């Protein structure tokens, strides 16, 4: 979980939850929902994204709704991580809550081209452009969030709580 490596897809600023997870499909089964992720701004993405790929974005990624289907559908497509200059807060929390690695890295957008290889080290908060051999500093995740991520999200945490109560 601490080291993640994958090919970069780039998106710009203010990528909102309606383009990530359109309202029309929010209540659809995940198999259907994931086919429409980001399609209105990059129609190839849902078909072409491969397991382990990483999104690099500008500022305010995930702005808008609290719909957890937004990070969940990206995770269902196999996305390995999201690295952006900044995130909208609910999206950020939701990604952690479902165990999708996510980190804020203020200089990331200009440092990567589409298709570059990115390596993310969550423990040291380093983002490396393997293709261009460049290392960037990201904003470290607080311990609470890294713990949730390391367990795979909130559901495994809740299972522990349920076992303790039983």
């Amino acid at each position: 979980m601490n080291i993640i490596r994958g090919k970069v897809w780039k998106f710009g600023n203010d990528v909102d939850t309606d383009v990530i997870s359109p309202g029309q499909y929010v209540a659809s089964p995940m198999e259907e929902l994931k086919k429409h992720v980001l399609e209105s701004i990059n129609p190839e993405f849902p078909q072409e994204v491969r397991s382990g790929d990483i999104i690099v974005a500008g500022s305010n990624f995930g702005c808008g709704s609290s719909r957890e289907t937004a990070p969940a559908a990206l995770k269902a497509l196999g996305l390995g991580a999201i690295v952006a200059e900044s995130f909208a807060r609910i999206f950020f929390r939701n990604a952690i809550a479902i165990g999708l690695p996510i980190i804020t890295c203020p200089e990331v957008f200009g440092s990567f081209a589409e298709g570059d290889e990115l390596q993310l080290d969550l423990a040291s908060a380093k983002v490396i452009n393997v293709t261009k051999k460049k290392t960037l500093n990201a904003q470290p995740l607080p311990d609470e969030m890294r713990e949730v991520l390391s367990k795979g999200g909130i559901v495994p945490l809740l299972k522990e709580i349920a076992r303790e109560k039983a």
Partner: protein
Amino acid sequence: MGMTLAEKILARASGKAEVRPGQYVTATVDLAMTHDAMAAVALILNEAGITKVWDPDRVVCLLDHYTPSPTAQMAEARKLVENAVTALNIKNFYGQQAGVCHQVLPEKGWVLPGQLIVGTDSHTTTYGAFGAAGTGIGFSEMAYVLATGKLWFKVPETIRFVMSGTLSPRVMSKDIILYIAGKYSMTVAQYKAVEFLGSVAKEMSIASRMTMSNMSVEIGAKFGFFEPDEKVRRYLSTRTDQPFELVSPDEDAVYEKEYEVDVSNLEPQVAFPFAVDNVKSVSEVGAAKVDQAVLGSCTNGRLEDLRIAAEILTGRKVHTGTRLLVIPASAEVYKGAITEGILHTLVDSGAIICPPGCGPCFGAHMGLLASGESCIASINRNFKGRMGSPEAKVYLGSPATVAASAIQGRIADPREY
């Protein structure tokens, strides 16, 4: 050193004497709100083996997004929620008849100054109009809250918008928040708390404050406060027996930044597709034809919103090329609009009256747009694909601008009426 509203509430809820921005705290929430998302939350609880809610009396649930159930599949989801609230002993369940959560919870007296409230909806910031720290969370975090009553929070920096001057006739609080988004961008309050204050805030109705608190999430905010005052006490006096205090920020509280907003010469504002901060004054819009006009939502579906639309539409007709959908935010609003004759006026003008709920705002049902169509709406978002086809355009405006535009079949200036 003093504390802002956000700091005071998070300190109290986490059992600390004081907290500072940047600090992480684990707080006990005062209230948890879920809507149709309860279906997903219930599935998570079930998967995790959680069978009891930490305190069912602190949970409120209702159905507003897919109301009435538009498909057999969504009817199954409704049934799942109904069964879940029964199994979890959540008695505060309003079903499909009450209206939009952010209108219903205040109406039913659930939202009190100083509370920490989480909801499975980004517009939970609306409760800031009552001095409550309301904020949106996802399904998994709500499952965690229902199991434990607790959640971690980062204490946010607070910024202030000091509003002075006098609003012109037909210019509304919606225009102020759109202006703020346009001038300072949709990230000006990212991960921050906002306090709206000044003479304009003091004079503003509860409903108008709710519009601005609601849309504070559109500028990135975690909370969107107005300092609670006697208007809040009056509003709540017939709605709750619970004791509460009118919590206020300390005079020596530290703010990250303060913005002055003079509303005196403010024109009606319109947010163009596909971003809430893509804002122009109505006089700069030009000829923008609209196929649909939507009046409603948790942002602007209250009685004062329907009232101003009815004033504008009295004796006038909706343009032949335009559909005007009216969605009262709640059953209480609906009844008030019947009593005042507002619905009579709107129906006479050619409006389509929909049942209380979210309507087409989030793009699932009841008035979606076809490709190539345009809509002016009193809602909160105009993202690509927000209200149906990704090839449709949504413009945001005030209820007055929506009504004027419905008459002219293009985006119009409500000050003409």
